C-alpha cells in the first residue's frame, strides 16, 4: 500500500504538521459538515418539539364524525376496549360568537370531558392561571383572546351559539349563555393561542343543542403500538360516518412543509461542501501539475495507472475523513453550547427575551439523528472522492516522456 503511505506524506510531509492545502481543504470540509450538522440537528429539534406539541393538542389519534355522534358512552366503551388504545376522551368543537362589552370575537370553542381529558391531552401543562378541574364552572381563554376581548380572569363572557341564528329564523330570541372566565391557557401553538375558548363538554353540548352527542374522540395508543396501523384498524372497524386520523394526517400539510424546509436547508447548505470539494479538486489538480515529473518517475518504477489515480483519491479520502470528523466535533460542540451562543448573539442585537417573545421558547431545541450524521458524512465523502477523480485521471493518463520534458 505505498499509494496510501505516499498520499499521507504528500498531505503531511515529514517534519511538518501538514501543508497549507491540507489544512485549508480540511477546514472547508469541516465547516460544511459543521454547518450541516448544526442546521439539521436544530431542524430536528424543531420537528420534535412541534410533533410533541401536535400530539399534546390533538392526541395521537383523532376520530372525527361527519355528523353528531349520539351514543357517546357506547362509543367510549368500544374505543377503550379496542386493541392498542390506551385512553379515550370525547370532544365537541365549533365556532361561537363571544362578546365582552363592546368587544366581539368568533373563537374556536373546544368542549372537553374534564374527567377523561387529562389522560389524553395534558391540559394542565397549558394552564397559565386557574384550575382545569373547575372547567364545569366557566371557561378558559387563550392569551390571544384575553387581548382581543380585553378580558381577564373573573370577567364574564356572553356566548352566542349557532342555535341563536335558528331561533332568529323562528322570530325568537335566544339569550346568550353567560359564563365566567376561570382561567387562561397557552399551548405554545400560535394558531390555537390566538383564538380559542376551552369549556366543559356539557357547556358546549348545551350551546350547540347536542344533548349527549359529541363531534369526535381523541385517543392515545399503548406504548409500542404503531399509530398508523392502529388508525387503519380503527377505520376498518368504524362506520363510514366516523374516521380515525393520526396526528400526522391531521397536520399533513404543515408536516410536509417542515420536511420540505429541512430538505431545502440540506440542499442549500450542501453547496458549502461542494465549494470545499471544488477547492480540494483544484488543490489536487495543481499538485498533479507540480508533481508531474514525480508521477512520471513512479510510472517508470512500475506504478500502474490505477495506482497513480489511487494516490490522489487517497488524498481526497484523508482530507474528507479528517474534515468530516472535525466537522462533526465542531458541530456537536457548538450545539452543546448553543443556548449560550444564541443568548450572546441575541443579547447583542435584540432584547433579552427575544427568543421567548418571538418563538415561544427560550432554549433552542436540538435532536440528534444518526441518519442525518450518516447522510452528511457519506455524501461529503462521496463528493470529495468525486472531486479527486479528474485530477486522478489527469495524473494517471499523463505521458511519461512528455512529463519528464515539461518545465
Amino acid at each position, binding site marked *: 500500500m505505498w499509494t496510501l503511505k*505516499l498520499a499521507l506524506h504528500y498531505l503531511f510531509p515529514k517534519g511538518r504538521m501538514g501543508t497549507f492545502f491540507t489544512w485549508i481543504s480540511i477546514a472547508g470540509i469541516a465547516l460544511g459538515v459543521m454547518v450541516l450538522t448544526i442546521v439539521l440537528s436544530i431542524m430536528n429539534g424543531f420537528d420534535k418539539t412541534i410533533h410533541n406539541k401536535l400530539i399534546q393538542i390533538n392526541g395521537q389519534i383523532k376520530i372525527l364524525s361527519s355528523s353528531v355522534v349520539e351514543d357517546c358512552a357506547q362509543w367510549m366503551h368500544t374505543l377503550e376496549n379496542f386493541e392498542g388504545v390506551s385512553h379515550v376522551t370525547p370532544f365537541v368543537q365549533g365556532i361561537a360568537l363571544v362578546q365582552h362589552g363592546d368587544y366581539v370575537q368568533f373563537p374556536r370553542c373546544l368542549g372537553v370531558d374534564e374527567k377523561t381529558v387529562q389522560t389524553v391531552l395534558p391540559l394542565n401543562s397549558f394552564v397559565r392561571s386557574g384550575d382545569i378541574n373547575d372547567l364545569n364552572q366557566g371557561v378558559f381563554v387563550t392569551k390571544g383572546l384575553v387581548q382581543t376581548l380585553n378580558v381577564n380572569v373573573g370577567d364574564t363572557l356572553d356566548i352566542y351559539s349557532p342555535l341563536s341564528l335558528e331561533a332568529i329564523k323562528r322570530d325568537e330570541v335566544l339569550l346568550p349563555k353567560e359564563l365566567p372566565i376561570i382561567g387562561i391557557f397557552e399551548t405554545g401553538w400560535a394558531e390555537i393561542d390566538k383564538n380559542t375558548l376551552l369549556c366543559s363538554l356539557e357547556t358546549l353540548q348545551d350551546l350547540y343543542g347536542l344533548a349527549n352527542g359529541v363531534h369526535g374522540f381523541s385517543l392515545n395508543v399503548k406504548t409500542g403500538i404503531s399509530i398508523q396501523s392502529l388508525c387503519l384498524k380503527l377505520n376498518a372497524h368504524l362506520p363510514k360516518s366516523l374516521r380515525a386520523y393520526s396526528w400526522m394526517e391531521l397536520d399533513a400539510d404543515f408536516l410536509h412543509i417542515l420536511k420540505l424546509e429541512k430538505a431545502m436547508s440540506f440542499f442549500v447548505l450542501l453547496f458549502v461542501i461542494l465549494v470545499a470539494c471544488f477547492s480540494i479538486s483544484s488543490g489536487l489538480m495543481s499538485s498533479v501539475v507540480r508533481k508531474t515529473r514525480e508521477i512520471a518517475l513512479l510510472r517508470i518504477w512500475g506504478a500502474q495507472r490505477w495506482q497513480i489515480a489511487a494516490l490522489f483519491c487517497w488524498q481526497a479520502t484523508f482530507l474528507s475523513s479528517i474534515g468530516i470528523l472535525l466537522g462533526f466535533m465542531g458541530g456537536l460542540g457548538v450545539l452543546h453550547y448553543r443556548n449560550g451562543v444564541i443568548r450572546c448573539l441575541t443579547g447583542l442585537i435584540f432584547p433579552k427575551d427575544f427568543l421567548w417573545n418571538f418563538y415561544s421558547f427560550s432554549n433552542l431545541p436540538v435532536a440528534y439523528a444518526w441518519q442525518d450524521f450518516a447522510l452528511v458524512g457519506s455524501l461529503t465523502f462521496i463528493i470529495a472522492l468525486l472531486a479527486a477523480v479528474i485530477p486522478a485521471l489527469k495524473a494517471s493518463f499523463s505521458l511519461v*516522456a512528455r512529463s519528464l520534458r515539461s518545465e
Partner: protein
Amino acid sequence: MNKALLIADKLTKFFANSKTERFCLWHDIHIEISEGESMAICGESGSGKSTLLFALGGLEGVDSGTICFCDQMICHRLNPHIPGISYIFQHYYLIEELNVLENLLIPVRVMGEKVDTGIMDRAHCLLSELGLEKFSYQLPKTLSGGERQRIAIGRAFMMNPRLILADEPTGSLDEQTSLRVVQMFFSICQKFKTSFILVTHNENFAMQTNKYCRLEQGELKRCK
C-alpha cells in the same frame, strides 16, 4: 566479449513541426551496449539526445527500427517500466515530502517488493558509497544540489539495474560538484558492473566511457 545487453538497430524518429510538416530528428541509429559497458552521447542542444535516450528506455516511440533489451523487443509499444533499466535526470525529481532514505526506498515499494533487511542494507550501502549516510533522515530540501543528485543516483541503483540511462545528470551542477558526482557515479557503476548510457555536454566525462558518440545532423557518429 560480454553478451550484448541492449541492441538498437536502424532507429529513426520523425517529429512533426506542424500538421503537415515532419522532420527527421535522427535516422538509422545503431547502438549496442554489453554488460558492464558504458557509453556517452554528446551533441548540441536540440539534437535529440534525450529523445534517443528515452526511446532506448521505452519511454518514447520510434518510427522505425528495433530495440532489444535482454533479448526482448521493447520498441513496439510505449512501456515506461522495463525491469532492469533505471534513469538519472538532470533535475533530481526527488519526492520532497520523504526523507533521503525513503527516497531511496520508494522504487522498491512501488515495485511491490518488501523492504526487508537485504533492501535496507543495500540502501545504507549506497548511502555510504555516496557519502550520504549522515543525511539519511533529512528531507532533500535541506541538502545541496550535489547531494540531491547523489540521492537520485542512489535511487537509480536501488533496484539493482542492468542498465542506467543518465540524461545530463550534471546539468544543474557546477563544474567541481559535477566532477565529484560523475566520479561517484562511474565508480558505483563499476562496482555493481552496471552498464550505462550517459547523455552529456561535457566531453571530458564522455571520454571516460567505453564508447563515445556524437549525435550530429540526425546521425550518431562514433568518436571513441
